[in-house]
């Protein structure tokens, strides 16, 4: 049995030795260095580019512009709308314009500073409210990217029949993924003439296709390899360095390396969407929720990235994990000239959790009900209807997570002034929203008698390689881990889809199970399970050619109704409850998260240590989201003005793993990566209210915002 065991991570040894090869570590002295010249303006026409001084610099090999792109100069995870290199117009500060290739990093960077660009500024659309009114169009189709609705029952009637209605607005800001490793990669042409790129990424097959389109060559002539990747959290889903590396290799016919400085990383990659959320909640005196109406306005920046995805996912998760008979959600994303907002751990749901959890606490307060009781009363459970009227047929362990927290909640005692406790709940659909998002893999043997798993799954540090091996071992009924992992390479694997949406354990885990089932049948026939050694089976099979067993899984979902979003957008959901104790210093406005209890229904914990690692890391990110992280366009440059929580900012965390097994998942597993973060900021904000009487509706609730709110409250 490997499932449920704390199997040592397969990548840990190299990482503690310091030998793990991250993308920039693959660099050698024969490689050219490429760097990007970026727009210094948020919105402008490019009138003139003068690269002559850069080209004149000794050691500069090429300066590439959009004119040097042989294929299509547009990329995008969902829709192709973002230029690799700007053509005549820039739409955000930091947009890529040129690629400078030099013999060393020093030369390339120096040259990029010598490029002169003349701009003619256009109106800077600085927020979505300006965007919706402005006559200036960021794209010809208008400034509204997406409008999704969730309509269930009749919200108006629901409010009429409510005993209590609470209405508030909430807002959140840009958050940077802030993975410790900045974007990097290398590229070269191999002996077949194929373009090879090895990079820090969350999705190799997607990037292979984008490079092929960029260079107008068949995808088969592009090979993308995942280097050891120093975190992703959604920020390495979009094409980062890969396109530029491929273009530079294509033109120079020489190996090329790229690496973003931290400043470039902050400037260049996507952010978490700032959302403005108007939220109205109705309930009966008994605490039953009767209606929810939500109006979400998002700033998606000038290009789509995952903007539509966030728009829809935020909408369908807007009620939180509760049964609400009447729901009306309007979720709109507007283009602006701010940084491109894209995928980040939770795709809009952490922002909504702030709102629905604050609302629920206010309802509870108004009717004199305990915050835990009101959550238990309304919790989604097996058989419940979600906001999209999806029946939860299987795993739905929210109540179990609440029960896991209950003893700590009931026993809570304030530790003097400034002490407070808060709850946050969440549910999260595993996998992409209402669209096909399959994963494939294949298994074979080595002639020496080992099973070989070919996986296109990108392990970005969360531990999917280890988890998939555990799943495979048990699916094959192996007693020891006799498996070779061939991973992260488009030449040797099938498309597993992106490492995002907490989907790899569930979806790629099922693809592995599917392949294992076929291999198992084969092994059965060969007498493996009646004692024939694998070595012998493989030796015999090798003579005829080793068999290959393909696995595939695409979670059953239905496309949301275009008008009402009703349907079953996810095959399964994860659930969680966090309870956070804070201490607020009313003199300084400093809030410290002291202790967290985090209960997560993960279906089945394949690797408990990994699950806990995700929970702890999610809590840390939640502390940052709630209390200190804020990317300010034009101001934030690096970690000196973007604070991540340190070890000293972390609360003590007790993780409670709830396993309501999901029959459609591998050995009952669902996912935990994003859920770990989602309810934490909400729990902190609710705890601050409990501690101080002040309700914070804007994140981050940093020392200044909190102190000002405390002062205001005093005057009141």
């Amino acid at each position, binding site marked *: 049995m490997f499932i449920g065991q704390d199997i040592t991570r397969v990548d840990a040894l190299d990482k503690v030795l310091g030998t793990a090869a991250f993308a920039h570590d693959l660099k050698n002295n024969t490689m050219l260095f490429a760097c990007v010249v970026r727009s210094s303006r948020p919105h402008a026409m490019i009138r003139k580019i003068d690269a002559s001084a850069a080209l004149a610099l000794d050691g500069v090999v090429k300066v590439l512009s959009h004119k040097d792109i042989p294929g299509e100069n547009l990329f995008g995870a969902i829709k192709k709308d973002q230029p690799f290199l700007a053509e005549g117009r820039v739409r955000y500060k930091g947009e890529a314009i040129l690629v400078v290739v030099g013999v060393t*990093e*020093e030369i390339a*960077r120096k040259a990029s500073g010598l490029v002169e660009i003349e701009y003619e500024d256009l109106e800077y659309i600085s927020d979505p409210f300006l965007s919706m009114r402005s006559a200036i169009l960021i794209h010809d189709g208008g400034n509204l990217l997406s409008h999704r609705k969730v309509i269930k029952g009749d919200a108006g009637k629901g409010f009429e029949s409510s005993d209590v209605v609470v209405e508030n607005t909430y807002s959140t800001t840009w958050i940077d993924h802030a993975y410790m490793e900045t974007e990097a990669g290398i590229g070269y042409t191999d002996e077949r003439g194929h373009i090879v790129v090895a990079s820090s990424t969350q999705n190799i097959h997607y990037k292979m296709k984008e490079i092929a389109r960029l260079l107008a060559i068949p995808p088969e002539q592009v090979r993308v390899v995942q280097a050891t990747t120093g975190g992703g959290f959604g920020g390495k889903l979009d094409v980062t360095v890969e396109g530029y590396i491929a273009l530079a290799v294509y033109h120079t016919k020489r190996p090329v390396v790229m690496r973003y400085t931290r400043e470039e990383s902050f400037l260049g990659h996507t952010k978490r969407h700032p959302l403005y959320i108007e939220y109205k909640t109705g309930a009966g005196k008994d605490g039953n929720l009767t209606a929810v109406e939500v109006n979400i306005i998002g700033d998606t920046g000038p290009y789509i990235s995952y903007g539509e995805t966030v728009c829809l996912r935020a909408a369908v998760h807007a009620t939180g994990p509760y049964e609400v008979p009447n729901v009306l959600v309007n979720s709109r994303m507007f283009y602006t000239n701010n940084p491109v907002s894209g995928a980040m751990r939770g795709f809009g749901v952490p922002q909504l959790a702030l709102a629905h959890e604050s609302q629920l606490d206010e309802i509870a307060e108004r009717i004199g009900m305990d915050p835990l009781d009101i959550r238990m009363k309304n919790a989604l459970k097996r058989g419940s209807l979600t906001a999209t009227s999806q029946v939860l047929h299987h795993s739905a362990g929210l109540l179990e997570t609440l029960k896991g927290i209950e003893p700590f909640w009931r026993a809570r005692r304030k530790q003097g002034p400034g002490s407070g406790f808060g709850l946050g709940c969440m549910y999260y659909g595993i996998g992409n929203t209402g669209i096909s998002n399959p994963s494939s893999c294949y298994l074979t043997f080595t002639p020496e008698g080992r099973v070989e798993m070919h996986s296109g799954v990108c392990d970005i540090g969360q531990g999917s390689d280890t988890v998939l091996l555990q799943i495979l071992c048990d699916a094959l009924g192996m007693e020891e881990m006799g498996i070779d992992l061939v991973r992260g390479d488009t030449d040797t694997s099938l498309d597993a889809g992106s490492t995002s949406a907490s989907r790899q354990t569930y979806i790629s885990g099922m693809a592995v199970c599917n392949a294992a089932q076929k291999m198992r049948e084969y092994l059965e026939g060969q007498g493996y399970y009646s004692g024939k050694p694998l070595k012998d089976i493989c030796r015999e099979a090798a003579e005829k050619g080793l068999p290959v067993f393909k696995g595939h899984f695409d979670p059953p979902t239905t496309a949301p109704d275009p008008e009402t979003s009703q349907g079953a957008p996810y095959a399964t959901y994860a659930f969680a409850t966090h309870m956070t104790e804070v201490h607020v210093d*009313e*003199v*300084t*406005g*400093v809030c*410290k998260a002291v202790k967290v209890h985090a209960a997560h229904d993960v279906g089945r914990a394949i690797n408990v240590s990994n699950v806990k690692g995700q929970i702890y890391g999610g809590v840390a990110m939640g502390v940052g989201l709630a209390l*200190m992280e804020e990317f300010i366009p034009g101001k934030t440059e690096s970690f*000196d003005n973007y*604070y991540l*929580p*340190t070890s*000293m*900012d972390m609360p003590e965390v007790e993780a409670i793993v709830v396993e309501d097994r999901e029959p459609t998942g591998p050995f009952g597993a669902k996912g935990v990566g994003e859920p770990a973060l989602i309810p934490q900021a909400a729990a902190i904000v609710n705890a601050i209210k409990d501690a101080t009487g002040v309700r914070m509706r804007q994140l981050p609730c*940093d*020392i*200044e915002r909190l*102190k*000002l709110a405390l*002062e205001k409250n005093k005057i009141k």
Partner: protein
Amino acid sequence: MLPKFASVIAKTREEALSWLSSLENPRIIAGGTDLMVKMRAGKQYSHVIDVAGVPELLTMTETDGRLSVGSAMTHARLSTSEPIIRNARSLALACGLVGSPQIRNMGTIGGNLANASPAADSIPPLLIHDAVLVLESKETRRRVPLEEVIVAPYVTSIDRKELLGSVEINPLRGYREGYRRVAKRATWAISRLGVAFAIKEDKGRFTDVKLAIGSCTPMPFRPKKVEDLLKGAEKNEAIITEAIRMALEEIKLISGIRPSYAYKLPVLKGILEEVLRG
């Protein structure tokens, strides 16, 4: 990547002074925690003179009741130094709050002063200890009070041919002394506000009060009028309220009204209340 410069490593004070006098556009480097960041951002010097290993700058001596601290002593050393803890507790505390463990192992007291950030943690404690900086060039040697050395945010009156050799401080014994600061993160963050204090009381009276406030005005400062008001006064809520009112007034007089004061002044009021009440 750093701009091009030549670096020299001084083995003695004399060597450093002689380079300072002969080189064209030199800059002293010790820990490098500020200078390296500035140079990476594009600041250029022809030479940097590394003084981190100069023995004379690494010593601490006590003469005539004053403590002389070598300018290349690191924050880590000062925060754990027994004489500093005994004689200048606020300085030890402040040095222990600078940056991170790595920054404290690298950064020096001299560097912190020469950088002259309004938010430098070491400056308010040094102010209440009447710090005097010993500035030497090849030809000259002068002793200048810290207040006079910092002339504007990030600007000092240290001549570019001068080396900050040591900092002399007045020990304070028998005081209730400390350093309170506020930052946006539990550690490794720029101070949004820092208050150094040393207070002596006897039979319900303030017999001596020394206060210095950092991160609030362009340069950390001592509200001397407030100190004078409190000195010898009976300790009660009325005098504390008046002292704080005066302190806040003085800040507004120095800097006018700044947006950050909506936060800082109420916080300072709260901290001063705690500090004065004890």
